[in-house]
Every structure is written in C-alpha cells, then in structure tokens.
C-alpha cells in the first residue's frame, strides 16, 4: 500500500541505529500480542476471584424507593450483593465533577445507572442472582430531545436543570461582518451517536496484593484519575490503593471515565477477595459512554474575492445524563468551530444539554469531528458560489501566526495549513480527478471532495500539566523508562523507546518501558493527542539528563517536562499547537441502490517531526476507518433512553472490505515550534475531516448535500431523487 513521507524542513537528529526517531521501528509489543501471549485486562484470572455482576436500573429515569437484595443474597454461591448503603465514602464519581452515582441511591438518570452489584463464586451464579434484585420506585418523565430539554417546563434531570454547559465566544461584530459579505451560506446538520467499539470491552480485576494493598488492574486511560475516584468512593487514602492500566484492547476516549474500576474495588474492599468483571458486548454498547451527537447551524459570509468576513455558529450537544467530559467536548468543539481559518468577525454559541440518553463523553476528536463536518462543507458551498477553487479558498483564509481564530484566541505559531494544502493540490487524486470521474460505469456516479482539519494536541491552556517520567540506567546497563500514560494500542510506548534510544545512543531493544502504574510518576492521561508531545518530550529530556550523569552505574532521573503554554482564552483553549491535515476523497455512488463506495482517499498531514513514520501512518489509517464509520455507517439508535442496536450485528463498524482500495497517508513534516522535539499529536487528526470530505465528494457526485450523518443508503437514494427533481 503506498505510503509517502515527504519531509520538508529539518530532518530529525540521530539516525544511526534501527530504532532511532525517524525510523519505522516495529512495535515493541507486536510479537507478544500476535502470539496471544500478552495479557489484556480481560485475561486476568486471579485465583479465587469473585465474579462481579452489575445490576442496572430497570427504568431509565426514576426515583428509587428501595432496592431489594435478599432473594439475590440467598442464592448459593453469592458472597455479597452491595448497594449504595455499602459505599463507604463519596457515592459519586466523575472526571471533573463527581455527579454520577457509584450505585444509585435516590435517582436513576440513564439506562446504564447501577443500583447494585453482585459478587459470586461463578459467572453463572452472579448473573442469575442479579436477576433477583428488585427495585421499587416511580418513573420520572423522560427527556430525550436536547431542544425539549431546554424548555422552561422540561423535567429536570439534575436539580440545577438540564443545561450542563454553555458558552459564547468570538470576536468583533458578526452583523457588521455579514453586511460586508457579498455571499452568505447557511448549513444546518446533525451528527450521529458514535460508539467506540473497542474490540476489548470494559474489563478488569481487583485484589489485595501480597502487602494487603488494594490493587485494581483495568482498561483505563489514566491510572491516577482512576485511583482518585476509587479512593473517594472507598474513603481510602491514595497510598492505600494501586491502579494498573495494562496495554488494553483499544479505548479511543471511551475508557477515560470510570466503568468497572470502582465496583471492582468495592467488592474486594468489602470481601477481601479478588474480583473480576468484563462487560459483554451488549452491556458495553448499551451502557458505555458515547460520542456527543451535535446539532449545528453555520452561517458564513465572504467577499467576492473570497475573504471570510463573518461566521455565526450554534452548537447543541446531547451530553446525556451526567457531566463526564461534556463541557470539555463543547469547549474544544467551539475552539475548532470555523476551521483553521480567519474571519473578520465571528460568534459561536454552544450548549451541552442533559438528556436521559445514556451518557456522552470523550471520543477521538472530542467535538471537533462534529463541527469540522460542517465548516468544511460550508467552504465548498462558498467556493461554488464564488467560483473559486476550494483549496485556494482555504489557503487564502488559512490562519497565519498571531491571527485570531473564530473563537477569539490568537494562534501563536500558526497552523501550517499551506503545506498540507499544497501537498493535496499536487497529489495524484486531484490530478486524476476529472478522468477518474468520467470513467464511471453506467449506473455509477463518481465525485471527489476535499476537507481540511486542525486538531489541537495536548490538553490546552490552563489544563495541560506536562508529564513526569523516570529514566533509569539499570544494573545490567540497560535503560528503563517509566511513564503512567498507558498504551491503548496506539504505540506510544514504542515511540518513547525510540526517543530514549535516540537520546541515550543505544538500541531500541535495550530500552524497557513501564507504563500505567500509580506506583510510578504521573505523566497524566493517554488522551487528547498528547502523549508523544507531552510524555515524549519528558522522556527525551530525562534521558538527556541521564546521559549526563557522570556515574556510569545505576542511576535514576525523575524529570518533569513543563510545556510553555499560551495564556488561557478559556479553560483548555488555545492548545499549545495544532496538527493540520488535508483530506481528498473519491467516492462512487450506485444510483440504483444508494450504495456508497469510498474508493480513493489521500490524507495529507503534518505531524511535525516524525518519531515513527509507520506509527503515524497507523494512527492516520485507523482514525480514517473510524471516520468512515462516523460518515456512513455508525449510529447508536436510542428509543426512550434505551439503545436499540447493542450488538456488532446491528451496530456496524467498517469491515475489511469497507476501506478504500486506495488509501494513502502523505506526511509533510515541518517541526512544530511549541516543543523541543518538534512533534505534533496525531492520534485524532485522521478522524476529523472524513465526514466533510465524504459529504463534499457526494455533493460532487450527485449534486445533493446531506444534513444528517451518518449518510446511509436510504438517504442517498432520497438525495438522488431530490437531486433529479431539484
């Protein structure tokens, strides 16, 4: 499969040794995983472990009068059935605001809320006992529509009401901006409720270690936030609990929030016995967090020669029952609204709204895919009205260093968009576009579309703490790097090994990397496209200090990398830097059946300095696959607060035949000036522009633009008919 690296700017230092930064060193974990030898969180089986079974509330929104567990407790083999009364400390958790019950005491707000947890000697007994728990209470009216949720007489999901977060950002005076415009385009649309669908569901074990310390080993994205919430619930000091996040079977943001960790710890804490819990697929889809569905309205004005004068955007995000990371998603979405372009005036209004529709939280892209889907199609609409080439229109308005983004903050170092625009413009897909489209067979229509994206990396101003790591020279002369951010599958630990090898002048296989343990340093989470940037720089600096140690024997460096963050315009905004990309997509539509075949795709991205080209390509392609799902396939359908499609047979993710026959990632590498390594985060950028590029390509193919994502075959057929009439 073609894979191009066009390196512009300086070439990464180092380069001797097969693993040094800049080379596609194989993953350090690949072989053990391929052999089935790596133990995932769901593979742990402590001797004598109790099987834990969560009991979910029978109603979606209800006031609880009582939870009856006597019948369940009486089942032979049941060791305990625990309710809210058994939670020793704070019966609430949450990454920012602790508003979600560990075990519901008074109110149930979504289908996934737990009311009790069973611990038994076997899985079968635990399951059977769970069915004997009865909950009495009275139903409360359901809130399932965000617009309805904001009405003054809407039932309140929380005492403070249904508005979880709101913001108003921008600069200048949009009315004046529209007055200056020669052309104004409006576009309103909604995006789907996407499920992470990691192949390994939420899973873990808990036990008392040899020293009697409570230990939880689970799939999670930050062992320290897991521990903080476990300790709050169990009323234990943090020194009394250890959390491990081993390499797990995918996360994509869906394992940042607590899932199994607290109930596992609770069972071990109360029984003294090890415990295990793996959600089955239906539970995972039905009750796990989801991507926020967004409803977005854009209005954008431009002058006749293509300068953007005004942007007015409204965002509504359905955040579900609890806060989780809703405000953060809304904030990042607003930050990126309008795309990497300058507007003379801008106004962005956003709301995150509570409903009884499950719970929404982090998912790769974190609000950006939802807003990029719109602006990149708006720009195409403007280009069409103005008679300007779509890429040139983007280039003309691309944010320059120091300019203000639509949300009102200044982009310090700029966004390096021109490089990827040029690359896309010079690419094979666009060069061949007209000929390729003309060659469509009877009954097929082809279209080509482009979309750009920017994605902030790191956690943003006022939030990104940098990372602490350890670098040690071991007794046998090798090196050990210890970080806390787990490897979710993205290969960050391999990148750290390469960085360490480069800094120390040794081979990659002489570097051991330990991760995901609260007994180590706090490198903060694996999320937000941050680890190669924040933790990678810490590793590089720590190793440089280690190398300087005069003592040749064992040595340990504890080092914290503190990135130089811009001033916060708003919490988390702006980011220290932004990764730019330009995506070109060629689609073919069957006009008789509405089937859409994405046949060609080029992703031009600038990852900054490249530690591992194959690793960057891997992130690009994996994110693109999820983006195709977001664009064409994936939607969790809710009815009365319950998920209707909770299996892989009815929640469809892309399979091997759904990826484009031609899929290319082209790297344009210009060092980022925000950090010493010059890297940019690449974990999320690939997913963000896909839906817009597909939407633009479909508009090119059939002359119809869609306002609802995912775009399914029935919508395509309807669109073909409307296009024929219109």
């Amino acid at each position, binding site marked *: 499969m073609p894979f191009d690296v066009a390196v512009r700017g300086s070439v990464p230092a180092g380069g001797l040794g097969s693993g040094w930064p800049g080379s596609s060193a194989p993953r350090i974990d*690949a072989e053990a995983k391929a052999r*089935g*030898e790596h133990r995932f969180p769901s593979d742990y089986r402590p001797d004598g472990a109790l099987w834990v079974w969560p009991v979910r509330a029978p109603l979606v929104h209800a006031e609880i009068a009582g939870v009856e567990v006597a019948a369940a407790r009486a089942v032979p083999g049941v060791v305990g059935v625990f309710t809210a009364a058994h939670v020793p400390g704070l019966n609430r958790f949450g990454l920012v605001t602790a508003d979600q019950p560990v075990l519901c005491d008074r109110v149930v707000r979504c289908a996934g809320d737990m009311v009790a947890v069973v611990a038994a000697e076997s899985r079968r007994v635990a399951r059977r006992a769970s069915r004997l728990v009865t909950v009495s209470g009275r139903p409360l009216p359901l809130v399932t529509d965000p617009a309805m949720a904001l009405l003054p007489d809407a039932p309140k999901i929380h005492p403070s009401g249904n508005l979880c977060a709101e913001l108003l950002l921008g600069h200048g005076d949009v009315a004046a901006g529209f007055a200056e415009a020669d052309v104004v385009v409006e576009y309103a649309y909604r995006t789907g409720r996407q499920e992470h669908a990691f192949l*390994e569901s939420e899973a873990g074990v808990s036990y008392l270690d040899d020293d009697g310390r409570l230990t939880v080993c689970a799939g999670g994205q930050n062992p320290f936030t897991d521990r903080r919430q476990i300790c709050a619930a169990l009323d234990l000091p943090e020194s009394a609990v250890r959390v491990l996040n081993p390499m797990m079977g995918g996360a994509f943001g869906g394992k940042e929030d607590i899932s199994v960790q607290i109930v596992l710890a609770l069972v071990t804490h109360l029984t003294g016995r090890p415990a295990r819990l*793996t959600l089955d697929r239906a539970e995972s889809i039905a009750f796990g967090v989801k991507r926020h569905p967004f409803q977005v309205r854009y209005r954008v004005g431009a002058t006749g020669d293509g300068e953007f004068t005004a942007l007015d955007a409204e965002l509504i995000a359905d955040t579900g029952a609890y806060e989780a990371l809703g405000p953060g998603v809304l904030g990042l979405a607003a930050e990126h609204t309008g795309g990497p372009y300058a507007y003379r005036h801008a106004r962005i209004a956003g709301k995150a709204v509570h409903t009884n529709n499950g719970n929404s939280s982090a998912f790769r892209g974190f609000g950006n895919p939802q807003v990029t889907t719109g602006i990149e199609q708006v720009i195409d609409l403007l280009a069409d009205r103005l008679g300007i080439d779509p890429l040139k229109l983007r280039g003309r308005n691309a944010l320059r260093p120091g300019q203000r983004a639509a949300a009102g903050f200044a982009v310090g170092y700029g966004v390096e968009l021109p490089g990827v625009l040029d690359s896309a413009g010079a690419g094979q897909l666009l060069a061949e576009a007209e000929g390729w489209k003309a060659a469509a067979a009877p009954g097929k229509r082809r279209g080509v579309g482009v979309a750009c994206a920017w994605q902030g990396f790191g956690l943003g101003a006022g939030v990104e703490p940098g990372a602490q790591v350890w670098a040690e020279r071991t007794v046998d002369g090798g090196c050990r790097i210890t970080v806390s951010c787990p490897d979710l599958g993205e290969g960050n630990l391999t990148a750290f090994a390469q960085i360490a090898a480069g800094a120390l002048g040794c081979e990659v296989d002489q570097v051991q990397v330990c991760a995901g343990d609260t007994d180590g340093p706090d490198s903060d989470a694996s999320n937000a496209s941050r680890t190669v940037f924040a933790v990678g720089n810490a590793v590089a600096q720590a190793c440089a200090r280690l190398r300087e140690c005069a003592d040749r024997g064992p040595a340990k460096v504890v080092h914290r990398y503190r990135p130089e963050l811009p001033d916060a315009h708003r919490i988390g905004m702006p980011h220290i830097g932004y990764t730019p990309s330009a995506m070109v997509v060629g689609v073919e539509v069957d006009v008789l059946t*509405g089937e859409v*075949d994405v046949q060609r795709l080029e992703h031009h991205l600038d990852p900054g300095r490249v530690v591992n080209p194959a690793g960057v390509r*891997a992130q690009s392609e994996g994110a693109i696959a999820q983006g195709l799902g977001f664009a064409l*396939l994936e939607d969790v359908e809710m009815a009365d607060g319950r998920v209707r499609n909770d299996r892989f047979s009815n929640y*469809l993710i892309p399979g091997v035949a759904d990826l484009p026959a031609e899929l290319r990632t082209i790297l344009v590498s210009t060092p980022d000036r925000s950090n010493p390594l010059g890297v940019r985060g690449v974990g999320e950028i690939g997913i963000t522009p896909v839906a817009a590029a597909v939407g633009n390509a479909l508009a090119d193919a059939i002359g119809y633009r869609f306002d609802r994502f995912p775009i399914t075959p029935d919508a395509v057929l309807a669109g073909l008919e409307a296009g024929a009439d219109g």
Partner: protein
Amino acid sequence: MDSRAIAPSRVVLRVNGVARELAVDPRGRLLDALREECGLTGTKDGCGEGECGACTVLLDGRARCACLIPVGAAAGGELTTIEGLRGDPVGECLVQEFRRAGAVQCGFCTPGFLVAAWSALARGECADAAAVTGSLAGNLCRCTGYVPIVDAVTRVGRQVPPLGRHAPPRGRQVPAGAVASAFGQARPLSGDPRFLVPDTLENAHTAVARLAGRAVLIAGGTHLMAAGGLEESDAVAVWLGGLAELGRIELTPGWLRIGAAVSWARLRRDTEIARLVPALARAAAGVGGPQIQEAGTLGGNLVNAAPGADGVPPLAIHRAEVELSSAAGTRRVPVTEFAVAPGRTLLAAGEILTAVLIPVPADPPTDRLEFFTKVGPRRGRAMIDKVTVATTAVLIGDRLTDVRIALGAAGPTVGLATEAARLLMAGPVDAARLAAAAKAAAAIADPIDDIRPTADHRRRVVAGILVRELSARLGVPFDGGRTR
C-alpha cells in the same frame, strides 16, 4: 430434572494436540472452556455472536468462531488456538509479517486474524489482496484500518504454498480432498444427558420424542449460540453432527438433494451447486465471513425462518422443497410455504428438516441467467438493513423465458415477484420492460417500517437491484437518472 444442577460431565477436547478432559456443561461455549478451563486466553471474547472473529480457532483446520460452538460439538475434533500456531512455519511467518507490516496496534483482534489467515492460507485462498480481503471478511479490527493486515497476509500468501491439508499443526492430518466437515464424522459421545449426539435419524427421533419439547436441534448452532445459548435453561441439545446423511450433497435422477446440515462453505464450493443452483452458491459466499460459512447450515437457515434468510430466495426460484422427517415418516413441503411468519415454520413437533430437494431437468439449459444480490450499508457482510433478490431466467433470442424472481428481507417471508416475472417474459427485453418489471417486483415487497431504512427504501432497492443486474447481464442500457 433441573439440568443446571447436574454435575458437569467430562468432555474430552483435543486442543493444540493435547487431549484435555474438562468438567463443563457441553452446551456451554467452547470459547469459555478454552479461556477458563484450559487457561488459553489468546482466544478473545469480542462480541459473542460471531461478528468480530476475535475468538477464531481452527476446528479440524477450519476457521470457526469459538463463541458459537457448543463444547459438545467440538468433542472429538482437532482444535487449534493461537497458542497452537507457535512453531508452525506458517504461523511463525504470519507473526513476523504482522509485526513488520505494522499490523498490530492494540492487538486484541490479532490472534483471531492470524488463525483465520492460517486457515485461508492452508486452502490457497490468499493469492492476492482481493482474495485475502474475502478471507478476512469475518474479522473486525477497530485500530488499524485493515490495510497493513491485508498487506501482511498477502505477503505470507506469496511465500507459503497451499498446505494441501486441512488439519492444523499437531494432531491428526486430514487430506484436503477428504469429505471433511464437522458433519458425518463420528464424535465420541460425552455421556452427558444435556447434549445428545444421535448416530442415526431413528435415534434422533426417539430422543426428540422422549424429551417432549425440551429438545433443541442444533446443526451449526450459530443462531442459537449468538442468541445466548442453552446454558441457562433446561433444554437438551440434540446435535445433528453425527448424522452422515444430513451432510451429503447428492445428484439423483430429477433431483439435487442437499442434506440439511451442509454448511454454506460447502455450498459455495460444490461444483454441482455452482452448475445447477448458482444463486445458492452466490448466497453462500455472502452469508457472512468464512467462520460463519463453515458453521452455518442451509437447514438451520430455513428453520430459523428469519425474514432475511439468505437461503430462501435462491431455493424459491428453483422451486425447491424441504424434506421433513419424523418417526411417522417423511413429507415434503415447498420452500416457499415452509416459513409462515418470522421465526415460525410448518415444522411440526417431533419433525426434523433433513434435506432440501431441488428439481433438476434432465438437460439443464446452458445459457441460464441467474443471480443473487444482497445490498446493505456495509460491503461483504450485510446482515441487517439489507435486501436480497434472487433471479433466474433463460434468454432465448431477445426474450427471457422461465423467469422466476424471489425477494428476501422484503417481507415477513420470501416474496415471489410473479407479476414482475410475467412482465419480463411478455416481450423483448428493453429498458422500459426492465423498469416496469422492477417496479412490479418492488410493489410486492412488504417490509416492516424500521426507523432506518424505511419500507420505501427497501422497495426502491429491490427495483434498483433488478434494473442494475438485468441491464448489465443483458447489455440493455438504462436511464441512470439525469446527468449532472
């Protein structure tokens, strides 16, 4: 008898060349027996319904989903898990190519892909990227986007010749040409009253009669296991894998007889099926990934009577009959009448569907035009939100004769588009005739109005399939809508 209170009996499984005696309920999932009882955690639980392939193992050298196999059905067979591929030349080659290609990210799906690839490589089905894509259609990955996985397996395919055998490393070797399938091979009986393996049809009838409603007949068992299996119930599994006659495909004068327990995989590859009932071979190739094709059976498909049962439209256009056997004798019923409603058939208590019979003329026409097309939102494996159309016809001059059209997933049971067929036969084929026939076929579709896609959409797709497929095969241009 509360079967849950029975002490687990001892089931003997041969795993990675080693015989293991396990105390488990034979109705339980093989996946759980491997992971919990054998401690072989390389095989993963990803979905529990055969969609993701993370639990792929080899049973007699063929890729199967362990989440869909009751333990009792694996007894006596040769099982290979990812751990058993260690040291195998093809297995080692796969590990190194996956590593080199960057095909391992989180790694949870990887063992399933490797085992599925091993099986396809053994058969020589990895000649190029397109073949590899088909061979891996039963495995999902959420991290990589598949490209390096396909690259890695394609590279192995170029280095490794087909093994010419169907048994995995270690264990008994079975020549590739042998009538190898889970059915027809003698299986040691587990001796557990919850899982019966009758060796004659007569014994099967006796057992079913004795069990008075508690018997659940299993052939491939995919539907049953995906829906949760039998462990929580009092039901007794009566596994039909010991009945050789159910696993045969036989051409007799006037009839092609397909045993009820013939798998999709065999239907797909059988030369008589390809020659006489090509729509059925086509349906078999798309019913699911290779793991599902190896497990699922035609009889199971018919008895489950889902509105979208892929086996029904191809059989309907060939006027097939089903043979129902009971202790009192056998009877035959047209396939088009067998399913009466979703999930309900004419199968009476105590009856077993034993065969499908397809009438074949003495000299079948050589220029038969026939297709089976399935359309859904995802390529390769649409299971839901789909529409299927099966069509057969003979072109004589410029006219179609002997036309029959059947629709699947377009109504509670199969739809016969008789008016559409009549229109097609009524005159020379041209664009207008095709369009009229397509419209007539769409009109008989009576699907439920799901939120998405709507009944209207399914009707449009029915019409679209007919126009597209007939136009292409007959060389008739059609009006594809206005040009942009």
